[in-house]
């Protein structure tokens, strides 16, 4: 699955935003990162998600995993969902 780093950061404030470190941490969490690339100024991580973790087949799911790993708070789901709904109607560049 492709993960946008900026999208993750809407839900959780990551202690590191270095793609390399993030890829390494995700790999050791059981989510091997096949590639980390940059496109249009966005960092995209290509993450393998094993079939026992369908809860992580979403940006919020990955954010939850990383929040637990780094010990940082995550935006409550209701708030996050509301934020998403708002940004959906706004032009993409605002996100």
């Amino acid at each position, binding site marked *: 699955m492709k993960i946008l780093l900026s999208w993750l950061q809407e839900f959780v404030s990551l202690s590191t935003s270095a793609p390399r470190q993030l890829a*390494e941490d995700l*790999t*050791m*969490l*059981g989510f*091997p990162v096949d590639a980390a690339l940059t496109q249009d100024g966005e960092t995209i991580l290509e993450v393998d998600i*094993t*079939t*026992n*973790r369908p809860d992580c087949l979403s940006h919020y799911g990955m954010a939850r995993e990383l929040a637990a790993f780094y010990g940082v708070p995550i935006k409550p789901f209701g708030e996050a969902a509301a934020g998403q709904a708002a940004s959906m109607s706004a032009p993409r560049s605002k996100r």
Partner: protein
Amino acid sequence: MDSADLPPSDITEAVQHTLEELGIHDTPRLQELFSQLANQLQKDMAQLAETGAGEPEKLEALRVRWLGRKQGVIRSINDNWLRSASPELKREIGQLLNALREEAERQILVVKRAEGIPMTPAPVTVTPAPVTARWSIPEPTVFVTGALDITLPGTRRAVGVRHILRRVMDEITEIFFSLGYSVEEGPDIESVYYNFEALNIPEDHPARDDQDTFYIDSRTVLRTHTSSVQIRTMEKLQPPLRIIVPGKAYRRDTPDATHSPMFHQVEGLAVDTHITFADLKGTLDYFLKAFFGPEVRTRFRPSFFPFTEPSAEVDISCLFCGARGCRICKQSGWIELMGCGMVDPALYPHVHYEASRYSGFAFGMGVERLAMLKYGVQDIQLFFQGDVRFLRQFR
């Protein structure tokens, strides 16, 4: 009967009798007899030169008379004189006979060369006398032909080598033998039950997709992993259990440098009371150090397989860059090598083990992958093309 009284033309008659019958018991008389034979040979050759020059049949007749395999003079001396002679005379006769035969062969060869008659292509072998006395030395085989250059070196028969994959599998099993494991095997054509169902892979699991599996019919597949042998073995044997399963597995992959529809795996399974993940780590760390060398480091990463819980992938530190990061390890310093985990307790009811009493670990590795890393092979297809130039590098 006295040989000295025989007319010279009758000397070839004399070889039909034994020395006993001819009354010859000492060396001088024997030498006289051979010199008469030599004279007769000269006479025959002279006669041939006068009357039969240029006629291959006459030369052939002469050859048969002297060197013929059945009734030739040389053969007759061998049969009639040499065999029954006393040990003291035997050596003498042998030497004189050899000299006479060489002379006859030489003379005939000279005529043949002179007349341009083709040489006998096959080497002519004169059967040596049977060895009866301890001191007698077997006569050497004599080759007489101009077409054969006996100084040429012989053709060495090509000797094959064990296939590299077989060798790597043997290396792997050898290491596990030293840890007390034994080898189990199972069929390549496997029922869906052993390949999927009993391994906790439900009907709707993506691994069952026809995209990945060769189905023979709806209940039969070519096994997609050697893990099916785990179930077969546990049905058969009670714990404690330590087995490895080398074998072939099949998946519907398009062949490329790292994929082949047929490949090899070595599967491992240990079930006993009190087996922990620490045992698994220790076992695989020992194995990988034994296989790749003591400087290799291992890393276990969480993963998922339906038949193990928890599951892990095993990485080794990159062999090529010493974990500094290179093209082969994709800059990570680690190379993904195999899968493993603790046997999922959901498997035990299938084989009637007490899930509360036993625990175990399992692991599986791709033989081609190990071989490629260890021997620096770049393309998996090379293993299956049967190119001797490739295969013979691994002796």
